[in-house]
């Protein structure tokens, strides 16, 4: 394996860590299952691509616009979550995914099925960031910033409010949490981060095509969150790493690698449904025997 190839994989992993963490805000923190995260990823990528190609705007502006515009679209597309219960939300977010892809595909402005190509490499402080180590560092910084933001959110009242609506919306209302408001926040924040990841992706690859952001991609991102351990910060990270690496490591069995990948997912859900590093998982208890879920629970006198 060449260094270039490895760096490409690592850059992808960094981008997918941001994506998995972004979806975790929605699914893990606020308890809103979404099968549409790739749509936000795509909106960020296309925003950035359009601004760079059609308007020749510099990377910084493309990137920040991708975050803001996708965040704004997220607020708006979060509205269905106010009207529908969990199982329908899954369908609604799927729908969002299909709508967004069709827009990319059938609106000429977005390049149609041919996508948008020749997206210039980002230039920051006079340095060009095409591929290699610099781009890996750039995307790692973004992943770290995302992690920091998620950590900070979990310490704030809004983080606690997300937990309450995930647990029980009536109980949340009884302590003054408007679940509508906080669902919209979760969609907005989650989408904004995914939008930034999309921008990094577009400038990394240099081109965007509609199918990259299709429904299967949403499933892939959700798998990372659930595989690693939904609701924790470590889970989506480890999920993104393992699920991005496995197909690469299994390349030698070529055709069967996705069969194995699928089997891995199924086994995981059967035996460790909380995710590989989720609270209460076998591995997490081995690594971290003092975690509060087991150790600090007082012995209950159950009659």
């Amino acid at each position, binding site marked *: 394996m060449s260094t270039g190839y490895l760096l490409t994989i690592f850059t992808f992993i960094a981008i997918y860590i941001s994506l998995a963490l972004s979806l975790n805000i929605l699914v893990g923190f606020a308890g809103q299952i979404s099968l549409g995260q790739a749509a936000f990823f795509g909106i960020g990528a296309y925003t950035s691509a359009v601004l760079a190609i059609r308007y020749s705007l510099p990377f910084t502006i493309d990137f920040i616009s991708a975050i803001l515009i996708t965040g704004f679209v997220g607020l708006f597309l979060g509205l269905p979550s106010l009207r529908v219960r969990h199982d329908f939300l899954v369908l609604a977010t799927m729908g969002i995914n299909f709508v967004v892809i069709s827009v990319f595909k059938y609106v000429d402005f977005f390049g149609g099925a041919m996508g948008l190509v020749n997206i210039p490499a980002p230039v920051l402080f006079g340095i060009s960031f095409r591929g290699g180590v610099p781009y890996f560092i750039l995307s790692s910084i973004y992943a770290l910033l995302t992690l920091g933001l998620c950590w900070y959110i979990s310490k704030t009242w809004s983080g606690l409010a997300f937990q309450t609506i995930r647990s*029980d919306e009536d*109980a949340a209302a009884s*302590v003054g949490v*408007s679940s509508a408001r906080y669902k919209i926040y979760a969609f907005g924040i989650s989408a904004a981060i995914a939008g930034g990841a999309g921008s990094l992706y577009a400038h990394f690859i240099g081109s965007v095509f509609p199918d990259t952001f299709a429904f299967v991609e949403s499933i892939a991102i959700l798998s990372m969150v659930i595989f690693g351990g939904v609701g924790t910060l470590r889970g989506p990270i480890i999920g993104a790493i393992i699920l991005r690496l496995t197909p690469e490591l299994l390349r030698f069995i070529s055709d069967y690698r996705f069969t194995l990948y699928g089997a891995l997912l199924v086994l995981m859900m059967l035996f460790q449904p909380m995710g590989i590093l989720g609270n209460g998982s076998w591995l997490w208890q081995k690594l971290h025997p003092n975690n509060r879920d087991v150790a600090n*629970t007082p012995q209950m006198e159950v009659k």
Partner: protein
Amino acid sequence: MPILEVERVSHWFGGLQALKDVSLYADREILGLIGPNGAGKTTLFNIISGFLTPTHGKVIYLGKPVQHLPPHQIVRLGIARTFQIVKPFANLTVEENVLAGIGMPYYAQFRGLVAPYRTTANVHTASHLLELTDLQNYRNAPANRLPIGIQRRVEIARALAIKPKLLLLDEPAAGLVAKETLELANLIKNLHQQGINIILIEHNMRFAMSLCQRIVVLAQGEIIAQGQPIEIQANEKVINAYLGQE
């Protein structure tokens, strides 16, 4: 002026009338709300706390109509409640459940998005509430793994965390053992002495009679009696309503 007035409230669930022209008031007291199964007691609590909008009628709190407000706004006015079927935040510890209540003033403000919740002052307030409800030993326990009696106390502690003027308790003694029931009665008296007004739904007649200064009896959606515990005990309609059930 009473703290709370319910004015001619009726409520329909589709074709079923759960409340028929109910009027009552609550003042600086422990008010008991009793009645057989399906009488409409919980429905009335849901209406007062904003979880349901009554089909007809008004709820006046501190002189202002509030029946159109959603629950997360009602609670900001100082009306807290517990649930008949307990709903603690299962994914949070007991302490975090209480902190979630302490956060009530923040959730509607921008500050809530950026202010950390686990401050020394907030943890201190939470500790105080945990002591008051005798939960200090369960501080770090996940709320969903506790026996029902303790989960009920967690709900009371969480409700107290919003600093209520009016506290609605929906069958707080249900599922408790005798000793716990006694402790609960003491807690409720204590809260009342601290100036919190309480409306209590109760099935256990003896418990209600010993605790409440005044009692309202609902049966099949209608108020059939109200008055002092002694009067209620002797009231023929009440006896019939309860006998009819058994």
